[in-house]
């Protein structure tokens, strides 16, 4: 955990709500190491992309490669702009689940999930704060909120005027750099989507194996432990930013509470804890030790997509020992995950849809 997150947590701990939640030290339950016999990893490969998906991704690529002009502070934003906003969603006076989005990329286009938002946002100045009263429409992903009125608080941090490429032009094909003809471009998109889908299916299959292992271990994870895990996650994901943006303690506590109250988040945290406890027990039973070569390999593989090399990691770790520890713990956890997965038989099936 970072120093900033620690600071936010310390501040929160002084609040009544936090004190009420925290009842003494969190105890770890006893877990017996599960058997690793007969594990099966079933990779359910998604169907290949259809015409609409390819076309839609093509449209998105045209926008990704569009010419962008950043609007000046105070300039009015317009339909079609790409915005970077801080956004809060309140329903009936309370932060909605998932209602804090900071530095969020919002395309100012009509979206039936947020009825009336476009009209109320259009024309607002860059740097301004806007409240919009919208109805969450039938396509909003949170079923339970569909039809509800939500108050959105939106601070427009940046706005970009976007001029998408003309999809029919030679220039567009050149800019996309995915082939000389539209067919070649579409094939490259198909390959890209299939690669992502297959890799994702593999990751999901790994989760299933780990769930099975956790179920065999049968760890009982207490509510207090789940609270503690969620608090830490919240501090990293939201707390630090909310604090930096001047949200007072009460508001932060409210945001945290929306995490603690969410049964899906609780269940997800519980799963993670169960898996971790099982891995720990397996390591102890089988005498698995940190393997220097593997740890290094895992850390470098993880850092590479972000342009970090060994030197950058070492520098960060030296500057802040908590970073070094977090890195090593993450790599160790991954080593243990690999240890378990290597014992699973892999099967691939085609998903129905």
């Amino acid at each position, binding site marked *: 955990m*970072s120093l900033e997150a620690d600071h936010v947590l310390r501040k929160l701990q002084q609040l009544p709500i936090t004190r009420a939640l925290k009842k003494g030290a969190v105890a*770890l339950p006893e877990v017996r190491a599960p058997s690793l016999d007969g594990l099966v990893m079933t990779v*359910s490969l*998604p169907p290949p992309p259809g*015409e609409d*998906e*390819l*076309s*839609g991704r093509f*449209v*998105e690529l045209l926008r990704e490669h569009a010419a962008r002009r950043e609007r000046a*502070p105070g300039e009015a934003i317009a339909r079609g702009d790409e915005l970077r906003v801080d956004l*809060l969603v*309140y*329903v*009936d*006076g309370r*932060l909605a*689940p*998932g209602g804090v989005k900071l*530095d969020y990329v919002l395309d100012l286009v009509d979206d039936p999930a947020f009825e009336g938002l476009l009209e*109320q946002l259009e024309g607002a100045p860059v740097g301004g704060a806007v*409240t919009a009263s919208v109805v969450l429409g039938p396509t*909003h*992903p949170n079923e339970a909120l569909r039809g509800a009125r939500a108050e959105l608080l939106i*601070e427009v941090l940046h706005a970009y005027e976007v001029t998408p490429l003309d999809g029919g032009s030679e220039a567009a094909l050149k800019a996309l750099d995915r*082939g000389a003809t539209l067919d*070649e471009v579409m*094939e490259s998109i198909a390959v890209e989507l*299939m690669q992502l889908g297959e890799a*994702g299916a*593999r*990751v999901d299959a*790994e*989760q299933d194996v*780990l769930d099975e292992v956790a179920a065999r271990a049968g760890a009982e994870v207490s509510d207090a432990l789940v609270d503690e895990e969620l608090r*830490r996650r919240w501090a*990293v994901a939201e707390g630090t930013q909310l604090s930096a943006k001047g949200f007072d303690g009460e508001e932060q506590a409210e945001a945290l509470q929306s995490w603690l109250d969410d*049964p*899906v988040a*609780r*269940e*997800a945290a519980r*799963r993670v*804890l169960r*898996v*971790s406890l099982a891995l*720990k027990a397996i390591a102890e039973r089988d005498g698995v030790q940190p393997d220097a070569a593997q*740890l290094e*390999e895992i850390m470098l593989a993880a850092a590479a997509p*972000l342009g970090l090399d060994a030197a950058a990691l070492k520098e*960060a770790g030296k500057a802040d020992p908590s970073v070094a*520890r977090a890195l*090593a713990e*993450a790599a160790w*956890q991954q080593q243990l995950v*690999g240890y378990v997965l*290597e014992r699973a038989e892999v*099967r691939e*099936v085609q998903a129905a849809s």
Partner: protein
Amino acid sequence: MTVPPRIPPALARRIWDAAPSAQTVMRTAARAANVTTQALALRDAWANRPRNLAEVRAQTRQNFRNAATTARQGSADVFSRGPMAARGARIASAGITAGNLPQTARQAFGDVRQALRTGSRADIDRAIGSSGRLLGDTAGTALHVTQLARDANRYGQAYRAARQAYVARAPEAPAAARSAARRVAADTMRLRVNDAGRISPGAGRPTAVQMQQRAGEAAARRAPAQLAQSTAQSAANAASRAGRQAAVRVATGQVARLAGRLTPGVNGAMFVADAAAAYQAWRDPNASTGRRVTATITALGSAAAASNIPVVSQVGAVVSTLSSWVGSWFS
């Protein structure tokens, strides 16, 4: 006869308070598209201009509390104040000049936020209730929640959401692009259908790699070399260490992109939240390298195996050899 709408007095005062001067407000209002509404707001702002800041703040909060109480009592008038408040705050920001903008806007933002933080929990409970709360505390509910959590935290779910988003945008594509998409989709589907339902231990079925080969060497060259290699490796030996690392690389790249899509008003997968946090850390110019690395590693662990660096490891699971390895590697 139509009664002209009124900005709630306390908010009107807030608008006035946020504006640096009457002249600025007037100029902005004159430029604004919706002159009528803004003029009404200005009228109310002037009529209710503050004499005493403390009084204004107290009244603003009380005003919203009253509205919330009305809402709870089921009045039809529930949110008639909502849209007005919305416009009011919009004007408040419009009336601010670029020069003094950041501080003033933030102040106004904070005040409106405070005002909104009242009301019943009914809708929030309803929002999260779909995941179990309203269904009662039964075994069935517990199962339901487990299932929801499992689904919510699946990469496949995020992938499907992304695909739906693409489908929604398809009509915007030019006709020629759609024809090309149709041809390629049919081709791809044919490959899959030939192999439908086959269960195999790895390589041998049509994959992205095979698609790539079919698409010709030129396309293969253009596709990111690392991705192609990763997929080939994991297809050949998915459970191996090399395969795992491939999954880490591929999954995190896409997860970071998907993180930006998560719709406000819905709690997404934990790995998406972690990826979003990492994304924030990288964009924040004030974030230390340490915070960036930590957030990133958290996201990586989360995406690759749904097993993060949880509280467990911080409570004492770290074996001593790991500590000594940390000591030597980072020295």
